[in-house]
């Protein structure tokens, strides 16, 4: 009957309460949050102060496909490959060592200048406001390890240089030499804005190779992507402690990339020009030979056949002849190329000389690119460099590839030529009316035509190459030059502060969470009410120091009021028993040390203060503690009374200093307890006490440990089950529940002992915390520890 509304009620309000409780659980530790947030704020401040800001510069260039006038138009092939091959290739070129090499050289990136800041003493790089210009020349190629010099400017003429712990004084502008490594010169800038005397710098010369590798790593080259479509633009970016340095590097990379592009094109077109020129010489000789043959033949045989020829060329065989001429031209070009390929080793191949096969043209272009790259490597990298080895491997494989393709092409063309010749023959057979002399003439003249066509073709190509050489420009243009926002990309102030603050919040939350996970104790009244189905009678508040005595009735502390409330609640709970009848109350607990004896002694005392006659029975035979509270222990106790039939009840009653309260001690600790509790003497004792006293308070043993507690049940009107806050494990409540559910006791209530009211949940609502629970008239607040006191923190985490 009672349970139903309770259930629905709980369900309704529980969630509301739980969120609040969880929040309160964390908010209670606000000083911890405060400390962590302060620590992390200081951390963030120091981090920002001592970290060196890094800037990022970006720039972008656009690769223009259309402008590759000199090359074959590749656009159709790119489409076949599906990707933007040209752009990807160019990205590699931008990051290629030859380009970066030039950049390192131009900007002296291998030379690093640093100095210490005045107050924070952090080492910062100096780039564009160096007071001097550095010149260095490596004597034996690249150095292996960085060279470090310390420089102190003495005056406008001299500086002191410390190298390998030795100091030398040098004049500016004079070069000095580290034998076999480097010559080195400092030139002081003119018109310096401020005095530089006494300034100290550290100059580090890094190995070029290491600098190159570092640059290659830190230079980011990406294909620009706009609305999910890959564009032909390339974005470059680099980070540096110095904005201007980053910008300089990017601009220089772009410039060197352009230079590199122009240079390659120049080499190719020069090579092509030379090749054509060369061929033209041969062809013109051959052509003039054939022409003179023709002339000779005509003179010798007196053939004059312009009309015939025109007739013959106008007839059906005309188209065949045209094809034949074309095929022979192609064949000649293929032969030219093959000849070139066989004679030159690893040199640029001429391009655009009229090969009809697009594949070969593409391969030749790729081949040329590789050869150009190899040529540039030659100056900087040794032949044993793995990258170069790989490069020369791909060159030779590509070369074989081209050769095979050309051979194929030659065979094909040869077959075509043969076929066409055969057809021509048949056609000529049909025209067999033509006299023999004329046929010979026609052969000669066709030879002449072929040579002439080739000659004219090459002439045309030569002009084309010559013109394009003049108008060479890079295949890319700058979309935006290097730009930096001026705001460091790292550390990002807002982000760092946010991260530190979040950490400052998360770490204490984790600490509290872990603590709460480890915490399996019961803490306060409302928690106990939630966890246990057993009604809770009252709670006794915690005192700063553990109490081990009978409390005075005019004591003004909260604990006294706790007992007053306990007595009041007890009286109300027992109001169904008439006033004139004696009431027996037993106190027990799950384990020892929960405060049974303390509560039973003081409960007895407070009942006595209210003018009841009370007797306190010490029935914890195993670990009696009553003597702590009542000093004047008589020799005889309950066990004596049970054993010795001659003893009267008066013999074991001890008056206490509290008026109206008598105490009976357990007596000698008997070996067999069950005998005692079953005995008739016990019954007789209880009967006699019931007549004499209003209240009989029994301080018994923990129920979890001893079974004789349970045998006292028949005498008991109410059992108070003591649960000590911050002491008893939540799971141990099951033992009390079992006892409660068995229903042995007429009335069964929980009493929470040592509840820390400062940590309790009420007062957290809308009205802040309970401000002290002093006495009635006084509203002086309880002494509070200050936040910087150790005890404050001990209290918080207790």
């Amino acid at each position, binding site marked *: 009957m009672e349970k139903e509304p309770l259930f629905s009620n709980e369900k309704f309000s529980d969630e509301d309460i739980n969120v609040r409780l969880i929040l309160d659980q964390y908010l209670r530790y606000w000083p911890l949050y405060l400390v962590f947030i302060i620590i992390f704020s200081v951390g963030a401040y120091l981090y920002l102060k001592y970290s060196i800001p890094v800037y990022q510069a970006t720039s972008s260039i656009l690769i223009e496909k259309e402008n590759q006038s000199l090359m074959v138009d590749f656009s159709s092939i790119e489409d076949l490959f599906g990707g933007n091959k040209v752009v990807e290739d160019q990205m590699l070129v931008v990051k290629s060592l030859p380009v970066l090499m030039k950049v390192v050289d131009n900007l002296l990136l291998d030379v690093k200048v640093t100095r210490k800041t005045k107050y924070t003493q952090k080492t910062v790089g100096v780039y564009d406001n160096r007071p001097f210009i550095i010149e260095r020349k490596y004597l034996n190629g690249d150095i292996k390890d960085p060279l470090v010099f310390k420089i102190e400017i003495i005056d406008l003429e001299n500086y002191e240089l410390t190298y390998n712990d030795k100091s030398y004084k040098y004049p500016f502008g004079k070069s000095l030499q580290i034998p076999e490594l480097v010559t080195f010169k400092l030139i002081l800038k003119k018109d310096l804005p401020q005095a530089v005397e006494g300034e100290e710098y550290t100059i580090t010369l890094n190995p070029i190779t290491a600098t190159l590798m570092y640059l290659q790593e830190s230079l980011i080259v990406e294909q620009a992507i706009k609305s999910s479509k890959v564009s032909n633009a390339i974005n470059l970016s680099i980070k540096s402690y110095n904005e201007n340095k980053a910008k300089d590097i990017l601009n220089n990379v772009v410039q060197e990339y352009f230079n590199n592009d122009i240079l390659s094109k120049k080499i190719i077109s020069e090579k092509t020009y030379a090749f054509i020129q060369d061929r033209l010489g041969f062809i013109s000789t051959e052509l003039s030979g054939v022409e003179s043959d023709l002339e000779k033949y005509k003179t010798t045989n007196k053939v004059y056949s312009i009309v015939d020829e025109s007739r013959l060329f106008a007839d059906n065989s005309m188209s065949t002849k045209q094809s034949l001429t074309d095929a022979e031209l192609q064949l000649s070009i293929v032969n030219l190329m093959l000849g070139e390929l066989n004679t030159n080793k690893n040199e640029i191949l001429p391009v655009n000389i009229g090969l009809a096969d697009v594949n070969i043209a593409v391969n030749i272009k790729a081949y040329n690119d590789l050869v150009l790259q190899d040529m540039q490597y030659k100056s900087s990298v040794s032949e044993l460099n793995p990258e170069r080895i790989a490069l020369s491997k791909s060159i030779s494989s590509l070369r074989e590839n081209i050769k095979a393709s050309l051979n194929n092409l030659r065979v094909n063309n040869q077959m075509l030529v043969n076929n066409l010749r055969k057809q021509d023959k048949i056609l000529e057979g049909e025209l067999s009316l033509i006299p023999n002399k004329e046929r010979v003439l026609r052969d000669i003249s066709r030879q002449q035509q072929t040579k002439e066509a080739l000659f004219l073709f090459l002439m045309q190509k030569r002009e084309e190459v010559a013109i394009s050489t003049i108008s060479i420009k890079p295949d890319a243009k700058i979309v935006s030059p290097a730009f930096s926002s001026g705001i460091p990309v790292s550390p990002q102030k807002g982000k760092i502060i946010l991260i530190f603050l979040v950490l400052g919040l998360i770490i204490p939350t984790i600490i509290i969470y872990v603590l709460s996970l480890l915490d399996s104790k019961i803490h306060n*009244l409302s928690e106990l009410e939630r966890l246990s189905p057993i009604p809770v*009678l*009252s*709670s006794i*508040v915690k005192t700063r120091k553990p109490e081990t005595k009978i409390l005075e*009735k*005019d004591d*003004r502390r*909260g604990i*006294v*009021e*706790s007992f*007053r*409330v306990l*007595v*009041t*609640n007890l*009286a*109300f*709970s027992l*109001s169904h028993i008439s006033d004139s009848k004696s009431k027996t109350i037993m106190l027990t607990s799950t384990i020892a040390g929960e405060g049974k004896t303390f509560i039973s002694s003081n409960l007895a005392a*407070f009942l006595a*203060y*209210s*003018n009841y006659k009370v007797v306190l029975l010490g029935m914890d035979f195993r670990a009696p503690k009553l003597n702590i509270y009542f000093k004047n222990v008589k020799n005889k106790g309950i066990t004596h009374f049970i054993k010795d039939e001659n003893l009267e009840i008066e013999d074991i009653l001890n008056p206490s200093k509290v008026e109206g309260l008598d105490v009976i001690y357990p007596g000698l600790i008997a070996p067999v307890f069950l005998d005692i509790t079953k005995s008739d003497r016990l019954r007789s004792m209880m009967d006699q006490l019931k007549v004499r006293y209003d209240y009989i308070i029994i301080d018994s043993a923990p129920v979890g440990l001893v079974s004789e507690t349970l045998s006292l049940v028949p005498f008991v009107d109410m059992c108070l089950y003591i649960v000590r806050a911050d002491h008893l494990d939540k799971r141990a409540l099951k033992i009390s529940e079992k006892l409660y559910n068995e229903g042995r006791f007429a009335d069964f209530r929980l009493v929470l002992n040592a509840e820390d*009211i400062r940590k309790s949940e*009420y*007062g*957290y*609502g*809308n*009205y*802040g*915390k*309970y*401000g*002290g*629970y002093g*006495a*009635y*008239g*006084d*509203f002086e*607040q309880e002494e509070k520890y200050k936040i910087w006191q150790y005890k404050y923190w001990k209290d918080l985490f207790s």
Partner: protein
Amino acid sequence: MFDSLKSIFSKSEISDSVLVENIKVDMHSHLLPGIDDGVKSIEESIEIIRHFIGLGYKKIITTPHIMKGTYDNTSEIIKNKLQIVRQEIQSQNLDIEIEASAEYYLDTHFLDLLFNGDILSFGKENYVLVEFSYLQKQNDYQNIFMNISQTDYQPILAHPERYAYFYDKNLSQLKQIKEQGVLFQLNLFSILGVYGKGAKMVAEHLVKENMIDFVGTDIHKPKHIAYLDDCLKDKYLQKLLQSGNLKNKSLLS
């Protein structure tokens, strides 16, 4: 300069005596010496009474604790003490009326007194001032009020703003008590926050919700007199005093 400033301020201020006009009767104090935690001597008692007179109070109903086991006062003891204080007032020729009732702690002893008719009530309505523990909620308080309601007595709950265990979201427990017909007496000092921030907030809330029927000082010691002057300057209290809801004046006749 200062005088002119002073006059500007005093114009906007309502003088204490005007405010006390709306109270006239203090019905919660501990002015009988030596029987509870209130004044210790007759001199302290008179010192406080003189201050009341100075402010314009016409009548004091003083209310010593009756709390079994702690302050075992009886109607007899209280009446005897009252005589002593009355004599002193007369001998000093002070112009104030004084009566004595009690502040009853709600325990079984109170119920016994109630059933025996041994209650010191005051006013025409048989008002009886009752209190709870500050610290912990009593289990059966609703039943106690039910019991009282079956008698001729009209319970007044002393300082409802001081029971922290009633500080729930909408003060629903206090509202429930109010609905049971219990009248509420506000401690004037609560509004100053001397009992804590929670008590101050709840006091303001109760004033806003028109739940206060009586105001009292609950004064225990002469050193708390200064609070009385301070609290009369509080705007919540001024509003309450001028609202006309207070029943204090009705105790005069």
